[in-house]
């Protein structure tokens, strides 16, 4: 290992294992919260789409209520949301700290955002295709499952990518109030202890993570477009 070189470049970083652990924590928070965000946000986005005026199941009141709730959650800055949600978090997972404590606010912060992206991806599906399916006797559920979601696949992949990257930012913010991970290291060592090499390394790692997510998302989107023969 090139330990002497690393020591010269980053004199304040004495525990690389801690940095490795922080990386892992960030990835776990990201993976866990992204999975739950999609699980929660996808149905919410579908519901927002279906209940809108002129869509398959127009329910103006429900739509307005959902849209309002989504807008409220989206207008609270994440770091405030995290503090406000602490009792809820404690009730849900039994702690306010660590990876487990971070996941509820991450999901509640990101799911409405993701739901809006899902809604706009579904809106891009041509109405004619939906009408043709209705003419073939498809039920609303069949249209969602076999028409809207597959036809919007490219947009949905992009939505997951954008949400994952937003979640990377959220996890870093979460670090400041006890969630752990790279954001926590950057905040504690880099900001509070003036160890700027910590800041540099964590930021570099976050940049790499975001790049990887974007590249993966682009690759999946391109593959889905190729499958459509484009």
């Amino acid at each position, binding site marked *: 290992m090139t330990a002497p070189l690393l020591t010269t470049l980053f004199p304040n970083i004495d525990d690389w294992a801690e940095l490795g652990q922080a990386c892992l924590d960030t990835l776990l928070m990201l993976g866990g919260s992204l999975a739950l965000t999609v699980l929660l946000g996808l149905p919410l986005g579908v519901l927002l789409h279906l209940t809108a005026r002129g869509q398959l199941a127009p329910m103006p009141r429900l739509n307005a209520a959902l849209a309002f709730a989504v807008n409220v959650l989206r207008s609270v800055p994440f770091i405030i949301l995290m503090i406000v949600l602490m009792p809820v978090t404690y009730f849900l997972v039994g702690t306010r700290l660590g990876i487990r404590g971070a996941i509820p606010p991450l999901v509640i912060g990101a799911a409405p955002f993701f739901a809006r992206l899902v809604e706009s991806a579904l809106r891009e599906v041509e109405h004619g295709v939906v009408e*043709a399916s209705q003419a073939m*006797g498809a039920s609303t559920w069949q249209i969602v499952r076999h028409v809207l979601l597959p036809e919007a696949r490219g947009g949905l992949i992009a939505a997951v990518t954008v949400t994952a990257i937003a979640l990377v930012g959220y996890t870093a913010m979460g670090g400041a109030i006890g969630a752990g991970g790279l954001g926590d290291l950057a905040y504690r060592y880099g900001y509070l202890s003036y160890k700027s090499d910590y800041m540099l390394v964590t930021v570099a790692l976050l940049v790499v993570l975001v790049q990887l997510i974007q590249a993966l998302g682009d690759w999946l989107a391109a593959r889905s477009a190729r499958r459509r023969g484009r």
Partner: protein
Amino acid sequence: MPAPSRSGPAVIRFLDVHKSYRVGGRDVPALEPFSLDIADGEVFGIIGHSGAGKSTLIRLINLLERPSGGRVLIGDVDMTALDEPALRAQRRRIGMIFQHFNLLGSQTIADNVAFPLRLAGARDEAAIRARVAELLARVGLEAHADKYPAQLSGGQKQRVGIARALANRPSILLCDEATSALDPQTTASVLDLLAEINRELKLTVVLITHEMDVVRRVCDRVAVLDAGRIVELGAVADVFLHPRHPTTRRFVEEALPEEAAAGEAPFARVPGRILRLSFRGAATWTPTLSRVMRETGVDFNILAGRIDRIKDLPYGQLTLALEGRDVDAALAALRGAGIEIEELPR
């Protein structure tokens, strides 16, 4: 002349149906109250300009649009009285094709054609594959099963649409401006395919269009729609050769550009009586005109004319100027031979 007798009893019945949309708190009528029967096995055309209500009318058949009043019967089923599951079951028996094809871009051609089968609950993959192969063969696309819609031409996409519409062996096929996005040559081949399907599968076809030529080529009967009202209805040959409503006349003129170009009072300087003779079917094959003219000693001058087909019916239409002492006798003899005659204003 009555409609061709190939068609049977009414399979689609509109009973005092009307439709209006609510726009800004006000009811705006799209279709005035009307009743209409479409017979089993016929190709029924609905022609109108955009905004005339034809898209609404065709969608009333499978209840993609719900009528504001009146009833729509398919066979003896009142579509307007069905609950959702029963309506979906009925819709599976009515195929529909669209101007913009509306295929699933994320699915192969084979999967697009299999889609209505799967929606209807088909699970036996071998049977689905066999049916899809049969349908693709009918529309001449066997070689394209594994392609995606984006890889096909417009005409090919519409053929996929037709195969998909036929998958559940419907008794009715609705065509929503099915050829409006296609070039003339492709239009002709798609219309030929529709006529063939109508003939071989004994399917009732309802099509909407804004082109009289589409009606002339494939339809048995036609309804002319103008501002939400059916202003003319009848056998295509009658409507085409003797249009009465101004809107119908405009549609016919669009299909016959040279007549429209002649403008107002085109025969003002021609001597004699101006007459339009229409020959249909067998009358087009006999030299009636020259025989009658010879026998009556009347002189004729041909001002305009055409010989063409309306679906399977050959027809001729000649505009003549007649001069001589026995013009009336000549006209009587022509009428006696089954030729329709109209005197035109000069």
